[in-house]
Structures are given as C-alpha cells and as structure tokens.
C-alpha cells in the first residue's frame, strides 16, 4: 500500500518535475520566470488530443506533430513577447508571462471549449505485478518517459556542442557573445525546448487527470518544486518535483482532508524560511 502511494507520488512528481524543468531552463538562460509554462502544457496536451480524436492521426505521429508545433510556438513567444522586453524590469517580464498564461488559457477555452475530456494518450491502465506489490502501468510509463527525457536533456546540455553553448550562454551572456554564440538564437531555442518539455508533461498528465482548459494550474505546483530544488538547477527541479509529488500523495492518505492540496505550499514556505537557495541552489558567487 505504502509503495503504491509512493509510486503514484513519484508519477505525479515527474509531471511537476517536467514543468519545473521548463521554468528552470528559461530562468537560467534569461532570468525570466515563465508563469505560462502550465498553460503551454495544456495547449500541448490538447494538440495531441485533437490530432488523435478529431483528425484520427495515430498517437505517435500526433505527439510528434504537437511537439513540433509547440516548439514553433515557444520560439514565437520568445520573439514576439520577450525579445522586445529585454532589459526591462523583472516586474514587467513577470506580468508579461502571467498575462501570456491567461491569454493562452482563454484561447484554449475558445478553441476546445470549457468541458473536460477524458483522453488515455495511448496508455491503458492495468496493474503491473512486481513481487508482492501491484503498480499502475500508467505510473511506470510516466516515470520511464520522464527518465528517458531527462537523460536525453542531460546528454544534450553536457555532451553536444549546441547544448553546451546554450548552457554557456545561460552562465555568462557577455562571454557567450564574444565566443560567437548567437545568444538570441539560444534564448529562442530554450523556449522551444521548454515548450516541447511542456508538451511531454501534458501528454503524461492526461491519463491521471481530465483534459481541461484550466489544467495549466497544475503548473503552479511545479513552482514550489522549482524553488525547493533551487531555482536555476536542473537536477534540483527534478528532485524538487518528485519530493513535492511524493509528500503530497502521502499527505493525501495519512493527513486530514485538504492537506493534499496545500502541502506543496507548506513545503514552499518552509524552504523559503529554512534554506531559501533550495536543495541544489547556489549562493551568489562573487567573482574575485
């Protein structure tokens, strides 16, 4: 029983982790907090849903099409909304992404309506026996895909020239310019990657939750996850997401009604009080 609670916590935690990863990638590169990340996830999930149910595209191609559309959308947001705001105060950037989130949500509502849809995303839920415990195949699926994506991203950002140059541009913009790295292109690609990760998160979330234009609010839970991991740390986002997911699902079973929903926020406030830089956070380093 306990193992099942933990595995379902890890599964939902993986979704938080992926959304938090989207926050972190963009924040690390451009110091913009993208409050629209959850809403991007909603659009990604609906694109797959529409392709499969309305256009009868098989699941895998539908998913790939959605990922490509989302990458273009991410680049578009960077180009049209954020590039003109470069150099503005952090406040303006935050308002811009909050506004963007509301805009995306409303457009999602206009296109797909305000109902909830059930969508299995090609995965059927059946119990998988592992020794004495039965785990849900959906949970295993979510964890496996997340793991695969993280390994892929790790490889990209650490082993490929393009990936390392993006990492470099996130760490020192001036130096990146002087190496001949196209910093604007890097930001645009980071937005594309973030939107693609959001699509994966959205598709993974659909077997757990109904599709709805409001589903982006799950993204709010990813925010404590990112803070817990140390905003700006990729491993932090993942560990933070999983901690939030697991503790939330334990709280849902062992604590009184209602605690499940607020547990992420209790953790957030606790982290900010005790260790504001997060688990993997780096205290500001002064260059000597």
């Amino acid at each position, binding site marked *: 029983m306990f193992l099942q609670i933990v595995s379902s916590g890890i599964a939902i935690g993986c979704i938080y982790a992926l959304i938090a990863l989207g926050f972190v990638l963009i924040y690390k590169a451009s110091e913009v907090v993208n409050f629209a990340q959850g809403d991007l996830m909603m659009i990604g999930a609906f694109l797959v849903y529409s392709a499969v149910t309305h256009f009868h595209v098989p699941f895998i191609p539908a998913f790939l099409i959605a990922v490509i559309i989302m990458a273009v959308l991410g680049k578009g947001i960077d180009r049209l909304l954020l590039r003109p705001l470069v150099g503005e105060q952090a406040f303006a950037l935050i308002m811009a992404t909050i506004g963007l989130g509301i805009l995306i949500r409303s457009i999602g509502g206009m296109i797909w309506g305000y109902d909830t849809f059930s969508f299995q995303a090609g995965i059927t839920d059946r119990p998988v026996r592992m020794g004495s415990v039965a785990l849900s195949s959906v949970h295993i699926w979510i964890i496996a895909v997340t793991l695969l994506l993280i390994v892929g991203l790790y490889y990209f950002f650490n082993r490929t*020239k393009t990936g*390392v*140059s993006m*990492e*470099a541009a996130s*760490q*020192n913009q*001036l*130096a*990146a*310019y*002087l*190496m*001949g*790295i*196209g910093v604007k292109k890097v930001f645009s690609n980071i937005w594309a990657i973030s939107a693609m990760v959001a699509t994966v998160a959205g598709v993974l979330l659909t077997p757990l939750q109904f599709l709805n234009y409001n589903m982006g609010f799950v993204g709010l839970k990813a925010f404590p996850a990112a803070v817990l991991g140390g905003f700006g740390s990729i491993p932090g986002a993942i560990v933070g997401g999983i901690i939030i997911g697991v503790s939330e699902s334990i709280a849902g079973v062992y604590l009184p009604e209602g605690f499940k929903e607020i547990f992420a926020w209790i953790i957030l406030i606790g982290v900010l009080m005790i260790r504001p830089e997060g688990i993997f956070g780096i205290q500001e*380093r002064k*260059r*000597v």
Partner: protein
Amino acid sequence: MAILQVKNIEVSYGPVNVAKGISFEIEEGSIVTILGANGAGKTTILRTISGLIEPEKGSVEFEGKPIHGLEPEEIVKMGISHVPEGREVFPDLTVYKNLMMGAFIRDDNQAIERDLERIYNYFPILSDRKEQLAFTLSGGQQQMLVIGRALMSRPKLLLLDEPSLGLAPLLIKEIFEIITRINQEQRTTILLVEQNARMALSVAQHGYILEMGRMVMDDATEKLQANEDVQEFYLGMREEGIRGARRWKKKKQWR
C-alpha cells in the same frame, strides 16, 4: 599594413560622451597598447571593435572591410577575439569545456585538438585542471583560461582588456611573457589595454595615450617611456626639481 583602422569613433552612454572621436590603427603582427586612467574610454574602444557596442559615428575597418555595426558573432568569425575585463569565464563549465567554447565557430575538429594542446602548452596549469569547474580556479588561473579560450578561435587580432587587473606581480609577469610568446609564435596581432603602464610599454611596440575619450598622444613605446609626462603620470617616476621639491600642479604637455 594596418590590420585594424579605427576612424573617428564616437560613443556615448546616454548623455555621457565616452569616446569623442577616437582614431588609431594597428600594424599587422604588432602589439599595440592603449594606456589611460579609469573611465578614459579604453573598454569602450574594445567593445566597439568586437561589436558589443555600435558607434554613433566613425568607422572600424578590419583588413580593409568595415565591421562597425556587425553582430559580435560575425566579428569573431572574421578573426577578432576579445578578452573582456574581469575574467568572464563560464563558471559552471569545466576548464576543458570553457576552452572548447572558444572554438565554437570552428568545425575543424582535428585542428581544434591541436590548438587545445598548444593552449595547454602555454598554460600547463589549465591542463592539470581541465576537469575542474572554472569558478574553482584562482584569479590568475581564470585569467589564463580566458586568454586561452580566446586563442581557441584562432584570432588574427586579440583584444586584451586589463589582463593584469588584480593579479599578483609574479603572475602579471608570467602572463605578459605568454602574451609576447603568442605574438611571436602565432603572429597574432595584439591590442592591449592596460593600467599597468610599465608592463604594457615593455611588451608593446606602439602605444596610445587615451584621456577623457580622446587620444592625446601616440608614439613608439621607447619614445613614450622616455617622455616626461608619461613617466610622471603613467609610470609614477618623480622628477626631482632644483630645490628637491616636486611641482605639484604640473600641467601635462598635451593639455
């Protein structure tokens, strides 16, 4: 032949004029230094050359082609590498990856490997530390890293902004020796901006003196070293007056 010609550039940050019509040129294969106090406009000149700032007026020509107004990445590709002031490493990348980022614009992998060996030869400490993250290096090692990284793009012209800033005298000497070696062995033209006038004049062949956004003097470095004003204001040598007292309100000749 002049590899770089700067003609009459004017730059201002808001209402503040920092470069008020600066002109100078650099002979191919030489080391040229620009001396000047804080705020004279030295860094602005380098930033204008490497494309970080666009001048309001004037032109910058590299190998006869105008480059002002181009993006920094295009200028790097043409063969100008800028080592900015303040040891701008990629703090959370390893020394090796920092160096490889210097070769970002190149794809000739074998030649890159050879250049990497050459950099390790100039700065053996970087080879010892290649798997360490750059922020863990000392100031001097970071300075070596950024110079090495700049060389990885195989520049024809290397711009160095205050490489001696905040370093111990022994390290300064070492870094200047390597700068001279790079110039002689690779035939890399070097523009060196410094406050450490003594060192800069000893390695450069030609020097410019920049004050308040204007070039006030330029000459071969031997002549500059012999110049009274340069001696007093940049080399800190005292001139003993007849009464043994120093004229404390002395005017510079070029004012």
